C-alpha cells in the first residue's frame, strides 16, 4: 500500500478509524530501520563572552619607516603604547568600567608576518589592526583572525609620524579604546553590582605643544545602560535583555557633591567626576550564573561622532607637541606634569608677647605646590624672618633666619571625615644669625648671652596635615618638626623647630587667562605657633657668660596672595 497525502487527507476528513491495519501490512512489508547522519546537537554555545585580543601594528609609510619598526626603539615604543591601549580594552578596566577582553598580545607586522612583541597570547582572539598610513591612521577591530571576519569597529585619526606614540598618552589611549568599545554590540561585561569610575570630561594631553593648547573635551557618560545576554549567529549579535543600570551618581569630586546634570552636559568645564551606575536586581542575580554584557541604552555608536571629534582634537595637539622635538617633549612633559598647583606670597608678624627683640620679628614666605604628573605633591617653601636688633639690655641682640625647604607630600582621602590627609617629608637648608640674651642682672644688664650662627645648615623636616576644601576655600591645619644642623668650621649650631599652624586659602579673587591656561587668584591667611630651640655645641663649659642653648616660643599671624592654575 502506498500512503499518499491525498488518501490520508480523505481519511482525516472522514474521521476514519485509525489505520491500525497498516501496522501489520506495512510492518511486514517494510524494513523499518531509520538511520540518519544527523543527530540532535548538544546545546549550541554561541554565547558571547569576554575574549582575548591581539593587537597588530602595521606601518604603511614606505621602506624607511618599515625599517624603523625593526629598530629596538620602535619595538620598545610599540610595546609600551600597545600595552597602554590594551589596558583600556580589558573587561572592567576601560573608561567608565568598560572593556570586553580578557588578555592582550601585541604584534608588529613585518613583511606580512605578525611578530610577537609583548603581552600574552590566547586562542581564538579578536584582532585589532592599527594601520599607520601616511595621511591617516586607522584601527580596525575584527571578531577573529580570519581574513573574512566581521569588522566590528573602526576608528581613524589624521596621519602623523608620531601616530603610534600617541597611545603613550593615557588620555588618548582611553579615548580610542572607548571609541572602539562604543561601536561594538557590547561595551563591557557585568562584573559586580555596580560600575564605579572617576573620569575627566576635560582632559589634557601629556605633552604640551608650542601653542600651549593641550586640553580637549570628552563626552559625558550615558544616563542608562542596558544589560543582556548576547549571542552571535550569522554575523548578528542577538541580545536577550536582562535589565539595566541607571547612572545613580555623578559627583563633582572637587565640590564633593552631586553635579548639576545640565551644567555638566553643556559646559564640561569642570575637571574630575566620579560616576556610578547601579545594576538592577535582575541583572545582579543573572550575572552570577552567566556572562551579561552592557551597553549604552541608546545603542551602539551613539557617542562615536563626539568621540571622533575628541580623538581628532587630541591627535592634532599631540602631533604638534611631538613634532616640536624630543627636547621640547621633555620640557613640555615637565610643564605638563605641573598641570595644576599654586604659588603664593605671604607676610606676617610675631604677635605673642615676648622680649623687645622678638616683638620686632616679621615673616615673609614664598610657597609653591604642584599637583599632577610625576611632580604631584611637590612643595617648595622659602621662609625668611626680618633680621631684627635690640640693645635695651646693654648688649646688642640680633635675630634672624631663613630657610629653603623642598618636600613631597603623600596624601589620601578619608571620605566623610577629611578631604585629604597628607604626610610630607622635606629637606632644606637653613641660615641663622642670632645673638641672644638669656638672663639679665639686677641692673638689667645681660648676664648670660648666646651667639648662634649657622651660615648653612641642612635640615630634615616632617609635616602632617589635613585638608578640607571646596570650590572656593581650603582649610589646612598642620604640625611639623624640623631639625637643622650647621655645616661650619666655626660654629656647630643646631635648630630644632616644632610648629603647628593653620592655613586658609580663599579662591575669591579675580580669574584671568594667559595662553591656554586659566589662573585664579586667592587670598591666604595663616597662623603659626612654633617653639624654636637653638643650640651651639661649640660653647665650652669654662665660658660662664656664654649659653649653649636658647628656646623661644613665637606666633606669627599673617596674610598673603596666591595664584592657582
Amino acid at each position: 500500500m502506498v500512503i499518499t497525502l491525498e488518501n490520508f487527507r480523505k481519511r482525516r476528513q472522514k474521521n476514519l478509524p485509525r489505520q491500525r491495519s497498516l501496522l501489520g501490512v506495512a510492518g511486514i512489508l517494510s524494513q523499518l530501520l531509520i538511520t540518519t547522519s544527523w543527530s540532535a546537537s548538544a546545546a549550541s554555545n554561541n554565547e558571547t563572552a569576554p575574549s582575548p585580543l591581539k593587537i597588530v601594528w602595521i606601518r604603511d609609510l614606505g621602506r624607511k619607516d618599515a625599517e624603523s619598526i625593526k629598530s629596538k626603539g620602535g619595538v620598545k615604543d610599540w610595546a609600551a603604547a600597545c600595552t597602554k591601549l590594551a589596558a583600556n580594552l580589558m573587561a572592567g578596566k576601560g573608561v567608565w568600567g568598560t572593556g570586553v577582553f580578557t588578555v592582550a598580545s601585541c604584534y608588529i607586522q613585518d613583511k606580512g608576518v605578525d611578530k610577537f612583541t609583548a603581552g600574552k597570547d590566547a586562542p581564538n582572539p579578536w584582532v585589532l589592526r592599527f594601520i599607520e598610513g601616511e595621511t591617516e591612521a586607522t584601527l580596525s577591530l575584527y571578531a577573529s583572525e580570519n581574513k573574512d571576519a566581521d569588522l566590528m569597529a573602526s576608528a581613524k585619526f589624521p596621519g602623523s609620524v608620531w601616530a603610534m606614540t600617541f597611545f603613550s598618552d593615557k588620555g588618548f589611549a582611553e579615548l580610542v579604546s572607548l571609541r572602539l568599545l562604543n561601536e561594538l554590540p557590547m561595551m563591557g561585561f557585568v562584573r559586580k553590582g555596580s560600575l564605579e569610575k572617576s573620569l575627566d570630561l576635560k582632559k589634557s594631553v601629556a605633552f604640551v605643544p608650542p601653542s600651549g593648547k593641550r586640553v580637549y573635551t570628552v563626552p559625558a557618560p550615558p544616563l542608562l545602560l542596558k544589560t543582556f545576554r548576547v549571542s552571535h549567529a550569522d554575523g548578528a549579535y542577538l541580545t536577550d535583555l536582562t535589565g539595566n543600570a541607571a547612572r545613580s551618581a555623578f559627583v563633582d569630586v572637587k565640590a564633593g557633591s552631586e553635579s548639576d546634570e545640565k551644567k555638566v552636559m553643556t559646559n564640561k568645564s569642570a575637571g574630575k567626576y566620579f560616576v556610578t551606575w547601579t545594576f538592577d536586581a535582575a541583572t545582579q542575580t543573572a550575572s552570577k550564573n552567566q556572562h551579561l554584557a552592557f551597553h549604552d541604552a541608546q545603542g551602539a555608536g551613539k557617542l562615536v561622532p563626539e568621540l571622533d571629534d575628541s580623538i581628532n582634537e587630541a591627535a592634532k595637539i599631540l602631533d604638534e607637541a611631538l613634532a616640536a622635538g624630543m627636547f621640547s617633549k621633555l620640557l613640555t612633559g615637565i610643564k605638563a606634569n605641573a598641570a595644576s598647583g599654586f604659588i603664593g606670597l605671604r607676610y606676617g608678624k610675631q604677635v605673642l608677647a615676648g622680649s623687645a627683640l622678638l616683638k620686632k620679628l616679621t615673616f615673609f614666605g614664598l610657597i609653591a605646590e604642584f599637583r599632577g604628573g610625576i611632580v604631584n605633591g611637590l612643595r617648595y617653601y622659602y621662609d625668611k624672618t626680618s633680621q631684627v636688633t635690640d640693645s635695651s639690655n646693654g648688649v646688642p641682640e640680633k635675630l634672624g633666619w631663613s630657610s629653603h625647604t623642598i618636600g613631597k607630600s603623600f596624601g589620601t582621602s578619608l571620605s566623610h571625615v577629611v578631604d585629604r590627609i597628607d604626610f610630607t617629608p622635606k629637606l632644606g637648608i637653613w641660615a641663622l644669625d642670632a645673638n641672644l640674651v638669656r638672663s639679665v642682672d639686677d641692673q638689667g644688664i645681660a648676664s648670660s648671652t648666646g651667639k648662634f650662627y649657622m651660615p648653612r645648615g641642612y635640615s630634615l623636616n616632617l609635616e602632617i596635615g589635613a585638608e578640607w576644601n571646596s570650590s572656593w576655600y581650603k582649610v589646612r591645619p598642620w604640625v611639623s618638626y624640623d631639625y637643622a644642623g650647621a655645616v661650619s668650621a666655626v660654629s656647630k649650631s643646631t635648630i630644632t623647630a616644632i610648629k603647628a599652624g593653620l592655613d586658609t586659602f580663599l579662591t575669591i579673587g579675580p580669574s584671568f587667562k594667559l595662553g591656554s591656561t586659566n589662573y585664579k587668584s586667592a587670598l591666604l591667611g595663616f597662623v603659626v605657633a612654633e617653639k624654636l630651640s637653638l643650640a651651639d655645641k661649640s660653647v665650652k663649659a669654662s665660658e660662664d657668660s656664654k649659653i649653649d642653648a636658647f628656646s623661644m616660643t613665637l606666633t606669627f599671624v599673617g596674610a598673603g596672595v596666591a595664584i592657582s592654575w
Partner: protein
Amino acid sequence: MVMSSRIHNARIHHAVRCFYVIAFLSGSLDQAYGKLAETAPDAKDWSSSLDISGIKDVTFPRKVLILQSLEKPNPTAISFKDDLCEENSFLTCANAESFDYNLKVNKLPSAPKPADFMKYSGANVILFNSGAGIDLFVGKKPEKINFSKAGKLNDKLNPVKILKRLFDVLGYDGVVLAEKGSFILVGSLKSSLQKERLQGILLENSSDEWIIEGKSKSTASVKNSGAALLQLDNANGGFGVFRLLAQNTGAAAKIGQKIILEH
C-alpha cells in the same frame, strides 16, 4: 513408491515453505513487536535536551517576529505575554524590546530588507501588517506570502491563533526535529497534540520545502506521497514523541520533514 516419494517431497517442500513463512513472519513480527516494545523517550526530556536554534538551514518556522509594520529603517515589533508562544508551541516569538535593541547594537544596512530583520532578530518568519491584511515572509530569501486578507496584528491578539494560522498557511501541522530509534520528535502546536494515539503522516521530499500547500511556486515541487505513518506516544507543550508505525521506503527521516496530523 514414486507416489509416496512425491508426497514426501511435497511435504518437505511444504515444510520448507512453512518454515520460511514462519521465519519470515516471526522475523517481521519480532521486528514490529520490537518497535512496539521499545520505550518511548519523554517529550519533555527530549525537547529540553535539544537546541533547536542550533539546527542550521532550517526550512520550518523556528522563531517568529511579529511586527506592527515593515516600516524602515526600524520597524516596531509586538510583544506578547511572556512565554505564551513557547508554552503553546515549539516556536518562540521574538521579544520586541530585544529586537528593538538588536537593531541599535548591530550595524544594519542603510536600506534593511526583511532578511535583515530576520538576521537581527534570530527569527526565520516575519509577520507584519500590510495594507488591508497581514503578510508573511519565511526563510532566508523570503518572498512575501499572503497570510490573511483581513485583520491586523496587535498586542491584544492571542499569539496561539496567529501560530495556528501560520501552520495552516504553510500547509502542515508539524515538523521532524529529531529522531531516535523508531521515534521521532515532532514540533507542532500544543493544541494539535491533545488527542490520544494521534496519527500523522510523514511527507516525502518535504524537508527542503517551506510550504506544502498554498499558492507558492514551491508547492509544485512537493511530492505528496507519505513516507511513513506515525502515532503519538507522549507530548509536552508543542513537542510530541511519535512512534514510527509503518514506512513506504527505507529512507531516513530528515530534520525538517513535514507532518500532517489527523484532525
